[in-house]
């Protein structure tokens, strides 16, 4: 099994909230195929649940401080699924009211392709702290992708 293949299996397991050992049999499948499975699972989990869009809309109504508290205490890691559906200004307003450790947890769960604009709209200091707390592969991937896009 290649390192790349193992990383893809880890990503699929993280997405499906399962132990990576469960998918040991996928280590014989090509990394591209496992990556494609993760993409499909992302679409199923993020896009086919219309409640996330409604929650993103609802998050505009209460004051930002209250919404940020509710997001953290009621939705927890599910915030990562909702973030990409929010407008950037509102998402940043909420993120700046959340603890760095919580943002770090979210960073690991975020799909950087969907939340790129929000990640880079965060104040640099907060983004750096969250990244260093999480050692977030998602943020790191987004950073790499942004760097390569700008070079």
């Amino acid at each position, binding site marked *: 099994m290649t390192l790349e293949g193992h990383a893809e299996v880890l990503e699929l397991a993280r997405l499906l909230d399962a132990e990576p050992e469960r998918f040991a049999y996928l280590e014989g*499948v*090509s990394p591209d195929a496992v990556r494609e499975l993760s993409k499909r699972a992302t679409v*199923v989990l993020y896009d086919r*649940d219309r409640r996330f869009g*409604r929650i993103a809309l609802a998050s505009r109504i209460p004051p930002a401080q*209250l919404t940020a508290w509710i997001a953290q205490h009621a939705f927890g890691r599910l915030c990562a699924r909702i973030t990409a559906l929010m407008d950037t200004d509102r998402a940043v307003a909420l993120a700046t009211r959340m603890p760095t450790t919580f943002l770090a947890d979210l960073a690991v769960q975020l799909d950087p392709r969907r939340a790129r604009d929000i990640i880079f709209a965060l104040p640099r200091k907060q983004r750096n702290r969250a990244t260093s707390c999480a050692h977030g592969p998602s943020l790191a991937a987004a950073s790499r992708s942004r760097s390569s896009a700008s070079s």
Partner: protein
Amino acid sequence: MAPDRLHAVRAQYGDPLPEGLDALSEDELADLASALAEAREEQSVAVDAAIDQALSHLPWLVRRPVRMIP
């Protein structure tokens, strides 16, 4: 006609499936399909619970417009 071994995986992950999955055993294919089905179910339950909890924290004046979002 041979039964479609990949039917359950296709039903969960969509069509066309990436190449190479037909090398997996019946049990492995079943597990791959059920892993996503379980994740969907767990997410659905978690979202329901989170929505209930979130609404319970909202002042009643705000709760009504939030509930009205289509």
